């Protein structure tokens, strides 16, 4: 799935849901505020009624206005309170804040209530009228704090913000993960596609090479036979040339064989093996092929390491690696190590040659890729094919000027 599609199918719906949630939350907040205000207003009106009755009772008893207010005072919720006579002259008042009595006697209407915004928060105010037993009328002006309500609304708002933040954070983390996953998937898909194309190309080359090899080998065999016959009948002075021709034909046949073996599928015949035997056989084969270089070979193997595989093929793979290492380093030792690593078997082949440049190290296992003048680029490719046919892996590491090491990992028995 392309990044654009991920955005369309996942990110956009998430953002839509988030916007919807935020909108619903905002509307819910507004509704909650409205309902709470109504509730608080009703409650405060009821409280004001009680206070009014208390004040009336105290005034009936002849309590002076200032003492009346003092006696009627209750709780921290009352911000201010004033007792006015019928002509709206203030008889007594109290306020939590110095000189603060936000009553406009010009504008105030008895029975009215309202909400005043003050720096200390919202204040519910009410001007009401009360009549005592002797018929005298008074006005009572009250201001209650609505801080409890505001705190509740603020808490609800904070919770909504926190929730939104958490949703956004979770979404961001989720989509980051999703994009990473998608990137990895895309990279793997590209790799798989490249591998498929490579295999297809290789199949075509294999088919072509097999065909060519088959077509060449028959005339080559005939030619070799003909040269053999000529050699028997030829005078001594021409035998040298005929021997040379025969040798050249053998070289061509060997090259054709190597090409054929490179393109043939590897089908190991698995048997129980001892790693030490495999390494020693490989070293023996190497000594037979290149006795001079074999003196630089050093084999170290832990005893008793068992594995399952095709001995001949594994020896062939190791031989290719050894030849490669020996060719890379003309005089320095070539070390082979075999050891167990948990349930796997590890084989290291190290040389102290000039190393492989970084741009070439990724290509050393490609067929027909070589940096040597005489090489055909088949040895390492074949080694990889054999190791992979055994369910193992092979990798090459190199540092220029310090040498190269090949690591083979095979399943243990």
């Amino acid at each position, binding site marked *: 799935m392309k990044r654009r599609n991920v955005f369309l199918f996942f990110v956009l719906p998430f953002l839509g849901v988030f916007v919807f949630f935020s909108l619903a939350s905002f509307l819910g907040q507004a509704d909650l505020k409205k309902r709470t205000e109504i509730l608080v207003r009703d409650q405060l009106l009821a409280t004001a009624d009680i206070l009014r009755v208390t004040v009336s009772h105290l005034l009936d008893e002849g309590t002076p206005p*200032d*003492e009346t*207010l*003092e006696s009627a*005072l209750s709780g*921290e919720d*009352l911000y201010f309170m004033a007792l006015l006579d019928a002509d709206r002259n*203030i*008889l*007594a*008042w*109290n*306020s*939590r*804040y*110095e*000189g*603060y*009595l*936000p*009553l*406009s*006697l*010009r504008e105030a209407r008895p029975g009215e209530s309202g909400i*005043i915004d*003050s*720096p*200390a*928060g919202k204040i519910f105010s009410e001007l009401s009228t009360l009549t005592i037993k002797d018929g005298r009328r008074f006005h009572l002006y009250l201001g209650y*704090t609505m*801080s409890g309500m*505001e705190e509740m609304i603020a808490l609800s708002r904070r919770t909504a913000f926190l929730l939104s933040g958490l949703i956004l954070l979770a979404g961001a983390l989720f989509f980051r993960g999703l994009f990473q996953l998608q990137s990895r998937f895309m990279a793997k898909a590209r790799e798989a596609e490249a591998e498929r194309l490579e295999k297809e190309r290789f199949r075509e080359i294999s088919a072509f090479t097999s065909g060519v090899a088959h077509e060449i080998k028959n005339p080559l065999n005939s030619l070799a036979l003909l040269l053999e016959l000529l050699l028997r009948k030829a005078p001594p002075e021409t035998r040298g040339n005929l021997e040379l021709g025969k040798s050249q034909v053998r070289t061509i046949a060997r090259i054709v064989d190597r090409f054929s073996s490179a393109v043939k599928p590897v089908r190991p015949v698995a048997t129980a093996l001892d790693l030490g035997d495999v390494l020693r056989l490989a070293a023996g084969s190497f000594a037979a092929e290149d006795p001079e270089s074999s003196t630089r070979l050093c084999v170290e193997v832990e005893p008793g390491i068992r594995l399952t595989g095709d001995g001949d093929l594994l020896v062939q793979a190791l031989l290719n690696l050894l030849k490669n290492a020996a060719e890379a380093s003309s005089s320095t030792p070539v070390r082979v190590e075999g050891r167990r690593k948990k349930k796997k078997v590890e084989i290291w082949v190290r040389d102290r040659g000039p190393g492989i440049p970084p741009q070439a190290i990724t290509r050393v296992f490609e067929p027909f890729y070589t940096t040597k003048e005489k090489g055909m680029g088949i040895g390492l490719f074949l080694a990889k094919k054999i190791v992979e046919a055994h369910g193992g892996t092979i990798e090459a590491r190199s540092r220029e000027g310090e040498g190269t090491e090949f690591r083979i990992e095979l399943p243990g028995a």
Partner: protein
Amino acid sequence: MNNRVALIPILAALVVGPAAGQTVGHFYDVDKEVKIEGVVRQISLEPRYKGTAPFLVLSVEDSRDAKRYSVEVSPSWFFNQDIHGGEKVTVVGSLAGGPGEVPTVIAREVRWRGETFILRDKRGFPSWQGGPQRKRGIRRFGSF
């Protein structure tokens, strides 16, 4: 006589008078806002509200009619300025019942030396009281 008296809290504390006899009308009445432009004649610290710090009170002579006003500014710690006698001030505030015959103005805004100090909001809420976190007990007033 040097009338430029620096307002140093220690010295000012010496001129604190007795608790002024308050009247029930001594509150910030939004219906009685006035503006005075005049000269500071006297500076004092007076206990205006029960249980609070002394208030800075300026005796201001109105430049238009030479009438004297007692201007209640704020608690001394809030208006922490070096004001002197003889300086010009412009006061916006509310006329309130004062302790004596001199009319009292509860200041909302004081303009002095080109600066404007906001002491209360338009309804008279004191700026030094902060927000809802600062809860205090009810100040008794009007029953002295």
